[in-house]
Each structure stands twice: as structure tokens, then as C-alpha cells.
């Protein structure tokens, strides 16, 4: 990784970290109950929820991995990020109203709470909590490592010191202020990311000589690269389209934001504005990768050692220090806003959901233990990042695809279809976890890969949907009678 030498960039990042700490102090005073800690007391307005949902979805992957993917394989990954406008609208339509209505009449604080209310019994809650925990461990490990790497570059310190600083700030506001701190830092972080993305988009086009010039350069080098499918081909691109189009409903750190809305009618503009604000971030994803590749192809830039260096190298070489500082702060913001959401739902899975599934009730002093577990999760993720990088890479495969395959059928279909059963819920979650893991391992070790770059997550999602519907049809005798009246009414509104 290149090392930052500009004091301006350093100051921007330090100011950002200080702002996060201030928000943590403020949020700590507002957090008194477990409901405050997990769903912000169901007291958030629409603007906060919209920006928080957008920024928690845009992780470090979007700011670094996205431009890297475009640099590496052209337009292929654009299908992944462009479909987010549809994905957010889809989430609002298919689960937004149902989940928020359930929160209106029940003490629903987590996604396993939602599943337990819908299907009854303990098994669906347990399986959902396990799926979320596995996904969180994988995601969190990669995010923590990313925080460390960014601070190594900016502060020019060793990884353990960088982790201590970055995770110290994250731990403070996540443990003290819970999701209150999480969503308000998300709001600040989301706005920062949007401004940074717009500015970087401008510079990417300017440095590249305009979009037409970039396209011409890339076309001369390899027409397929700038073609609609990029280097990965149509099947891979379209599998990403489907996975990211409907898989957003399966991202717990995003859809649990519905439970935090103060007023159910505040759902109204979210479907539109969350997608539009994410589209602004997609400009950075697209433009930096294309521009950097065009610079390399035209001989104005040395080829990069790794595709993921596209964004950092572009910022340090081609943008003013102040903008680079903002974007590095925005990059940290992207990573930390995703991490704080994962910490929250991961701690809830361990302290609230799994014990409730096993014993029938949550543990006593839930708020205290959720805070403790938040810190434990973060410390564990840091240790993994320092000593078990390979394990993190492996667990990282339990990411978007696992969440999508495990959660979409049970939540998206299950909250809208009364014949869906608890057995179908547990079956589809189990199948999706095993399938994702086996296919990823198999591809990683060269035993078997899906044809033509087809996404493992998309394949698992389709199989999981089939399992869920078939098992429901086979086991749905009197399923409708087992739904509680208030939940049934929430499914009918």
C-alpha cells in the first residue's frame, strides 16, 4: 500500500475520528434501555433512516473493492452497484411495511424476533440467529482488517497500533451509544461519503480526459472491457444483478433499520431516496476504476500491483490533498458505518436471540451484556485480523450471498405468504449456509466452480428459494391457523 505523507489528509482523518467520538458521547446519554441500544428506541426520523440504510450498505468494499473490480474487469461489477436503486425499492415494498407493522404491536428488536413472531417455535429464531452470527463474524473480520489497513496508510504506523486506534474509536461509540451512536455516525458518514463521491467523480472524469476519451482508450485496448458485460461475461454480470437486486432484502444491517422508524408513514420516501443517494456513491465505484485503467492503458500511469489499489493510488496521485483527506475519511466512514451495524446485530444474536431460542427468554441485564458482547466481538475480530488473516478471508465468504440466501426466502416471501412454514424457514436457512460454504470452499480449492463465473451467492439464493417454497407447500397443512392474529393482520394490511 502507498503511504500518505500529506498533513492535510492526516488532519481530515483525525477530525473524522474525533467527530465519531463526539457522537458517541452524545448517544451514550440517550441510551437507557435495550430498545434504545438495538433499535434506537424506535424514534428515528425518515432522513436518518434513509442515510443510515444507505451508508451501512456501502462498506469499504464499495469504496475500495468496487473501483478495484472495475479496474480489474471493466463493466461487469457495474451490474452489482447499479441495481441498488431497484434493491432498495424492493426492500421497502416487500418487507418495509410488514416489519414496521410488527414492531407496532410487538417487542420486535431484531430480525430473529421478526422470524419468531412470524413462524412461532424456537427453531426458526435459532437458525436465523446462527445465520446472522456467521455472516457477521465473516463480514466484521474483513471490515476490521480494512480499518487497520486504511489507518496504516494514513498514520504510517504498524497494523496493531492502527487497529488499536481505529477499533478504539469504533468500540467507544458502539459500546457506549449502541445503535443510536451507530445511526447518527452513519448519518454523518453517509453525507461525507456522498460529497466525497461527487468530488472524486469529477476528478476521475477530468483526469481521464472525459468519459468519451476514457471509453475510446479502453475500447482500443480491449473492447469487451468497456462493453456492457466487462471481462467477466454476461452470466456472471446477470447473476450479480439478481443477487444484489433481491439480496438486499436479506441484509440484516439494512432491513433492521425499518424497526427504528418513529412513524410507519415515514416509510413513504425511503424507497426513492435511499436508492438515489446510493447511486451517488456508485459514481465513485464506476469512475475511478475506469479512469485508472484508461490512465494505465494510455501509459500515463504504471500498472497497479493489485486492483484494490485503484482508489488509494488515484486519490493520492490525482486529487488535491483536501479531497483525498475527505475521501480517506469517507472510506473509514464506509467501513465503520457497516461495522457498527454488524456489531449491533451480532451482539444481539449472541445475547438476545440465541439464548431466547434455547431457553425461551433473553438473559437478564440484557443491555449490560449486549454492551459487553459488542466489545468482545470487536476484540475477537481484531485478534482474527492480526493472527488469522486466512480465516478471515474464508469467513468473508459468509458475506452478502450468505445473508441473501439465508434470509430472503424466510423474510421476503415468509412475511407475505401465509402458507410459509417454520420448517421451510429452518430448512432453507440450513441448506443455504451449507451450500454457500461448500461451493465457496470447492471453488477456492479448485474442486468445482459454477460455470461461466456464475455467482455462488446467487446460486445458493435460488436453491434456497426453491427449498423454502417446496417445503412450505409440503408442510403447510393448517399453516395459516398457526399464525398469531396480530401478525396475520400485519400481513394483510
Amino acid at each position, binding site marked *: 500500500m502507498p503511504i500518505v505523507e500529506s498533513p492535510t489528509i492526516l488532519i481530515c482523518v483525525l477530525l473524522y475520528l474525533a467527530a465519531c467520538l463526539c457522537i458517541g458521547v452524545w448517544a451514550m446519554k440517550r441510551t437507557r434501555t435495550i430498545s434504545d441500544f438495538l433499535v434506537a428506541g424506535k424514534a428515528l426520523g425518515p432522513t436518518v433512516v434513509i442515510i443510515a440504510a444507505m451508508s451501512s450498505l456501502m462498506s469499504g468494499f464499495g469504496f475500495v473493492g468496487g473501483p478495484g473490480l472495475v479496474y480489474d474487469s471493466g*463493466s461487469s461489477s*457495474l451490474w452489482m452497484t*447499479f*441495481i441498488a*436503486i*431497484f434493491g432498495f*425499492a*424492493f426492500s*421497502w*415494498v*416487500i*418487507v418495509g411495511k410488514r416489519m414496521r*407493522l410488527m414492531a*407496532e*404491536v*410487538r*417487542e420486535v428488536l431484531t430480525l430473529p424476533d421478526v422470524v419468531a413472531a412470524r413462524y412461532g417455535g424456537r427453531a426458526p429464531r435459532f437458525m436465523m440467529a446462527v445465520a446472522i452470527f456467521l455472516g457477521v463474524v465473516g463480514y466484521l473480520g474483513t471490515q476490521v482488517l480494512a480499518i487497520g489497513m486504511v489507518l496504516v496508510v494514513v498514520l504510517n504506523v504498524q497494523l496493531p497500533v492502527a487497529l488499536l486506534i481505529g477499533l478504539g474509536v469504533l468500540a467507544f461509540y458502539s459500546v457506549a451509544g449502541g445503535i443510536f451512536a451507530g445511526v447518527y455516525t452513519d448519518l454523518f458518514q453517509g453525507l461525507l461519503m456522498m460529497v466525497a463521491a461527487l468530488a472524486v467523480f469529477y476528478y476521475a472524469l477530468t483526469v481521464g480526459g*472525459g468519459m468519451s476519451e*476514457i*471509453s*475510446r482508450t479502453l*475500447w482500443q485496448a480491449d*473492447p469487451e472491457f*468497456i*462493453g456492457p458485460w466487462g471481462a467477466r*461475461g*454476461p*452470466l456472471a454480470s*446477470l*447473476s450479480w444483478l439478481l443477487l444484489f437486486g*433481491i439480496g438486499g432484502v436479506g441484509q440484516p444491517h439494512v432491513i433492521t433499520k425499518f424497526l427504528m422508524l418513529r412513524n*410507519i408513514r415515514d*416509510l*413513504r420516501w425511503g*424507497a*426513492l*431516496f435511499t436508492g*438515489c443517494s446510493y447511486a451517488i456513491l*456508485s459514481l465513485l465505484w464506476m469512475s475511478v476504476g475506469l479512469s485508472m485503467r484508461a490512465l494505465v492503458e494510455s501509459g500515463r500511469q504504471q500498472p497497479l500491483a493489485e486492483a484494490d489499489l485503484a482508489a488509494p493510488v488515484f486519490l493520492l496521485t490525482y486529487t488535491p490533498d483536501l479531497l483525498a483527506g475527505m475521501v480517506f475519511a469517507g472510506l473509514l466512514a464506509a467501513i465503520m458505518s457497516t461495522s457498527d451495524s454488524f456489531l449491533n446485530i451480532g451482539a444481539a444474536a449472541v445475547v438476545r436471540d440465541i439464548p431466547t431460542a434455547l431457553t425461551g427468554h433473553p438473559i437478564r441485564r440484557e443491555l449490560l451484556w449486549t454492551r459487553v458482547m459488542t466489545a468482545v466481538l470487536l476484540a475477537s475480530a481484531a485478534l482474527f485480523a492480526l493472527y488469522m488473516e486466512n480465516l478471515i478471508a474464508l469467513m468473508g465468504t459468509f458475506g452478502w450471498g450468505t445473508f441473501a440466501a439465508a434470509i430472503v426466502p424466510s423474510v421476503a*416471501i415468509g412475511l*407475505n*405468504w401465509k*402458507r410459509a412454514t417454520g420448517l421451510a424457514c429452518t430448512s432453507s436457512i440450513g441448506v443455504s449456509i451449507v451450500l454457500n460454504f461448500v461451493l465457496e470452499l470447492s471453488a477456492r480449492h479448485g474442486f468445482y466452480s*459454477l*460455470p*461461466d463465473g456464475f455467482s455462488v451467492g446467487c*446460486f445458493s439464493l*435460488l*436453491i434456497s*428459494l*426453491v427449498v423454502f*417454497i417446496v417445503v412450505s*407447500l409440503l408442510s403447510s397443512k393448517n399453516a395459516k391457523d398457526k399464525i*398469531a392474529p*396480530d401478525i396475520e*393482520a*400485519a*400481513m*394483510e*394490511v
Partner: protein
Amino acid sequence: MNNSGSILVKAILVLAIAAILFALTNSWLLFGVTAWSLMMLGLAVGFGAQLSQKPIPILIVGLLVVYIVLLTAIALLDNPRQPLTLILGFPAATAVLVYGIWPVATVIGLVYALTFDRTVLPPDRLDEFIRRFGRKDPQA
């Protein structure tokens, strides 16, 4: 959900199986059409009892047609051997993705917001729900 809802879910099952088969046989255009159909069926399931309210059926069928037309346009325009034709900075087929497929979905969010009281949350149905069940029950 009523019978039409169950039919929609069964249609999702059929399309999901078809999508798996198309993926495994690398029939990418058929897979693309199936993927868009799945996504639109999902939207239809989400609108639930309000599915028949105007303009939801038009929105869903219209979007499906638009997406299939755009996908076909990409397939027809994508020819790396032909001379480069730029549309607003992108090769023609890529321009369909950037200026067509990317922004089209904003229509869903727009319709959702503008028809919220009729197609998402009719005030009378919400009031009835709150009247019957509007209580906090920590033990539930």
C-alpha cells in the same frame, strides 16, 4: 395473502428452477429474462392486497417489458468487432446499461411515494390495524 398471492409464489418457484437450469446451461439471455421476471414477481408479492390498485399492475408489467427491451438492446448492440459508437461517453451497449437500466428503477420508488396512501398503506387499514392490535406486549 389470497389465492392470487399463492399463484405468484408458485410462479416464483417455477422461475427459480428455470433460472438455475438456464445458469447451468449458460443460456444467459434466458437467464436474464428470468431474473427480471423473478424480481418483478417479488415486487408483486410485496404489494400484497394492494396489487390490483392502479398503477401497480401497469408499473410491474411495464417495468418488466422495459427491462426485457433494454436487455435485448444490449444483446443486439454489443459487438466488439464493429467500430466504436459512443452515446454520451459510453459505447452504445454500455450506454443502455448506464442510462437505461441504472435509473429506470427510480420509477418504483417514485410510484411507492406518490401513491403511498392507496397502494402501500391505506389510512383506514392502518387505523383498523392499530385499533385492533395497537399495544405493546413485551411478553409476546
